[in-house]
Each structure stands twice: as structure tokens, then as C-alpha cells.
């Protein structure tokens, strides 16, 4: 018997499932927010036509791909193969992804802790982060959203916040 054991790395099915569901829901929410929120719409308008970005975990996902086709923002699923991706936001591990997406760490803190890799133009990546922050404010209650975003937008009017929330949730659930 060899003195060296071969050990196959294990699996993390629960964390993987959580991250996959979160990314799926957020992807659809971004599509919805681009129709409901003016600020998100404006951010997307500044991005080039056919711009596509992905967010997910290394080494093999899960991923979320969102793109702009003929001026319309669409959630394109979890597989970017066969599609040019202009910006890839990669979280270094599934555990780091779980930390970020379960709001134990904000995106900014995770970036400071070297958990994210940006592959693409930095200004575009920053636009995506701003969009994600707005979407999280719509999706999450204030207490949790404050942990996820750098600065909670207390200056938003109730009409924008609650009206937008209804719009984003309805469109996300219906996928429109």
C-alpha cells in the first residue's frame, strides 16, 4: 500500500443549489428591473449593443448570463458557451459565492478580500455592480439589503421602492 493516499475532492450540493437558485432569480430580476427602474435602464443604455456579462463561481459554476439584444435586456440562462461575453465577474470559489450571495459579505467587502476576478473592462464591471446593487434593494428587505450593498439608498421615494418592488417581483416570477 502506498504511503500517499489519493483523495477525490468532495461535493457541496447544498451550497451549489443555493447559489444556482440565487443566480437564476437575480438574472430574471435584472431583466425585470431593466424595464421597471429608470436608473437600471440608463445604465444598460450606456453599455454597447449586444453587450453580455456573466456572474458566477469558479471553477465550474453555477453561472448567470445576462445580455442586451436589440436594446432589450435578457436573462440568457446559466451557460455562456457559444456567446461572446464582454465582462466576466468570477467569484473565486463556491464558498466565497455563498458568502456573498447569502449576504454575509457585501460585494465591496468581497472585492476588498480578493474574492472576485473581473475579466473585461472595469467601467462595464462597475456598471454591473451598480445594477446588481439596485436589483438587490428591490428584491431584499432593508435589513438584508443593507448588508449586501455598499450604501442603502435611503433617498429613494416610497413610490419608487415599493412600486418598483411589486413590478420587479411580478416580472421576475412571470419571466417577462
Amino acid at each position, binding site marked *: 500500500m502506498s504511503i*500517499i*493516499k489519493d483523495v477525490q475532492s*468532495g461535493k457541496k450540493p447544498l451550497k451549489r443549489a443555493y447559489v444556482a437558485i440565487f443566480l437564476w432569480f437575480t438574472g430574471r430580476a435584472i431583466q425585470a428591473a431593466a424595464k421597471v427602474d429608470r436608473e437600471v435602464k440608463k445604465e444598460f443604455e450606456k453599455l454597447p449593443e449586444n453587450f453580455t456579462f456573466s456572474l458566477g463561481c469558479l471553477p465550474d459554476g453555477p453561472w448567470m448570463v445576462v445580455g442586451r439584444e436589440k436594446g432589450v435586456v435578457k436573462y440568457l440562462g446559466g451557460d455562456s458557451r457559444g456567446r461572446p461575453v464582454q465582462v466576466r465577474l468570477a467569484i473565486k470559489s463556491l464558498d466565497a459565492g455563498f458568502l456573498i450571495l447569502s449576504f454575509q459579505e457585501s460585494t465591496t467587502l468581497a472585492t476588498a478580500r480578493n474574492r472576485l476576478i473581473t475579466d473585461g473592462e472595469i467601467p462595464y464591471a462597475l456598471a454591473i455592480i451598480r445594477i446588481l446593487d439596485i436589483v438587490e434593494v428591490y428584491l431584499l428587505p432593508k435589513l438584508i439589503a443593507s448588508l449586501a450593498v455598499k450604501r442603502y439608498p435611503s433617498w429613494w421615494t416610497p413610490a419608487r421602492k415599493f412600486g418598483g418592488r411589486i413590478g420587479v417581483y411580478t416580472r421576475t416570477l412571470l419571466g417577462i
Partner: protein
Amino acid sequence: MNSAAVFAFTCPVKTNSGNKALENLPVELAGLNAVNPLVVANARAVGSKAVRTLMGAFGDSGMTLGLFEGVTEATDLGVVDHLKNICLEKKYDAFIALGGGKAADVAKVLNLAVSLKTPDARRLLPEAPVRKRLLPLVVVPAAGADGLETSQLACLSRMVFSSEWLAPALAVLDPRLARAKNGIQMAATGLAALGRAVESHISADQNPFRKAYSFAAIRFVRENLLSAVADPGNRKAALAVLNSAAMSGCAFSNAASGRLHKLGQVFYDLLGIPQGVIMGMGLPLVLEDALREGRYDLAALFQPLAGDDAFAQTPAEKRPEAALVLLNRFLEDLRSVLGKELPKSLREAGVPGYRKEEILDVLGQDEDGPYLRGVVERMADGERERKG
């Protein structure tokens, strides 16, 4: 500081420290072009939980890892040769040393033997120059680390291998592994870091890069060691001590081998006494001598030990003595927390007289031999105790 001084500094070690730092390993290894790593660990020293934590960090990466957890204090070049043959056969392309001390030394020498495809590792000689970049080495120091993990040195079979290429490419410091079994283990790590950092910091040759590392290491020890010793479960303080050990190794690699390091190494090699325990015992003696000799920049110690405000308020000529007073007070505080667990003399450390002679013989072969023998004699019964 003399800006015209001629100096060189090398530190190829990337550091990943903090919560869930271990989980970055698969990506970091991919960045080093490694997909088939071998983990080298002393399972008895670090515990099976640490091994499980490390292996768990590779979850979902799809990698297969080799695991050798049989490193002991008796591991020698014969074991390294056997491991080398298996590594060449199984084509391992990176090494991960889990834990401090021997595991890191074995991983470094094994990396040397595998990378150079040495026909017989038992014939490896420290004098033979290493001219080739080795395979990537990752060190994951755990409780019981001595700071040499991040250095360019490897000590095995009473030989000291030294090369820039022996230094690890990556050091991963994770709070889950920083927790010590007891206060004395934590104190040994901190004192080894403090000893090496202090020697690097007061070295006569000017090297601002090295000073940046040693300054931070001393300050980390000063601010965190007491809390970490009083409560070994304090993850924040324990991680800071582990960081200081890593920094002291980087600083030490760029300084001439110090007297304290030599003392600690000899006692560890021959008697297995943690280096930090011996270095903590010898630190006041060596620094008092350094103050008398006037060859060392003891005043430079005052700022990391006392803080910026006290440094600014103390006249330059008083800083060397003040630094010594602070350091002695710090060691006393540490002893008051640990009580008799931290020995003040070789007698308290349980070093028998006949082994002392053996140690004196080994020290006698060093260029600093006469001086070091004198220090050991003074440490034997605790000179400071005698003085009252």
C-alpha cells in the same frame, strides 16, 4: 535611514489571509498551472480536523489530491527519496505543506528532489546550488508554526538547505487553522516570530523592504500575542500571530542568520523544544549584549513595540534602553499569563545536563560558537533569576 544604502530583497511569497482563505486554493493552484497537488502534513501535530478542513476546501473543484500525512519529527531524507519516487510516478505538479515546522521542511526538500529529478534524494547537499525554478509550493501554516514556512530555508536531517527557489509561491493563512491547542503553543509561535523579526529589524545593514516586514511582524506580535495566549480560541488574535510568523519568515530570509535563530534551531533539532520557547528565553540576553556591543540599531525596535505616539515623545538617545525595557515587560506579561508553562531557564525547560554538553558541542562548530555557548550557559539556570 540611509537612502544610498545598497540592498537586495526577494520575497516571492503571495499571501492569502482571512476568513475562508483556504477555499481560494483551487483557483490559486490553477493560476500556478497546477492541477495535481500533493498535500504533505504532520497529522499528529496539526490534527485530523485540520486535514479535513484543507481537503474540504477543494470541494466542488473536481481535483484529485495526493495526501501524505505521515510527517514526523524523525522524517529524514530517506523518506523524502521514497516520496520523490512516488511523486515522479504519479506526476504531482505542486506541493501543499499543511502545518508548520517539519511538514514545511519536508515539502520544500521534496519539491527540490522532485523538481530536479534527483536520482537519490539522500545525497542532496545544501551546498549544491539550485539554478532552476521549482514546482509551485503552497504553505498552509497552522497552530505551531515557527515562521520558517515562508522562508527560503529548509532544515532536514540536520542540514540547512537555502535557496530563493525554496520559498513558497503562496502562503494561505486561515483562521480555522490558527487556533492553538494551548497557550504555550501559541506563545512559541509568537516568540519565534518576534525573535526572528527583531533580529532582522536591528540588523546593521540597511534594508527598508525587510524593515517593512519585520516592523509589521513585531507590531502584530506586540498587539495580539497576549490575547491569543490568554484565549487560544480568539481567532482574530490567533490569525494575527500566524500573520506575524509569515512576515517574520519573509524578513528573516533577507537577513543574515541571527544568533537567536541559531539557538532555537539547535534546541529544536536536538531536543524537539519549540524554537519560540528558546528564543523567548534568549531574547533579553542577546539584546542586552547587542546594546553593549553597539553594532545594532536597537532604537529601531522602539516604534513597533511602543507605538507611534510614545516613539515621537521619546528622545532618540533613550530609545534603545526604552525598547529593551518594553520588551522585557512584554515577556514578563506573557509569563504572568502562562505561569510555569513558559520556562525561564533551560533547567525549567527540562534540558538535562548531559544534553546541554551535546548542544554546546554543536554550537561550538558555528562561527558565533563562543558567543552562543556563553548565552546557553547563562540560560542554563536563568541568569535573570539569579540576579533576582
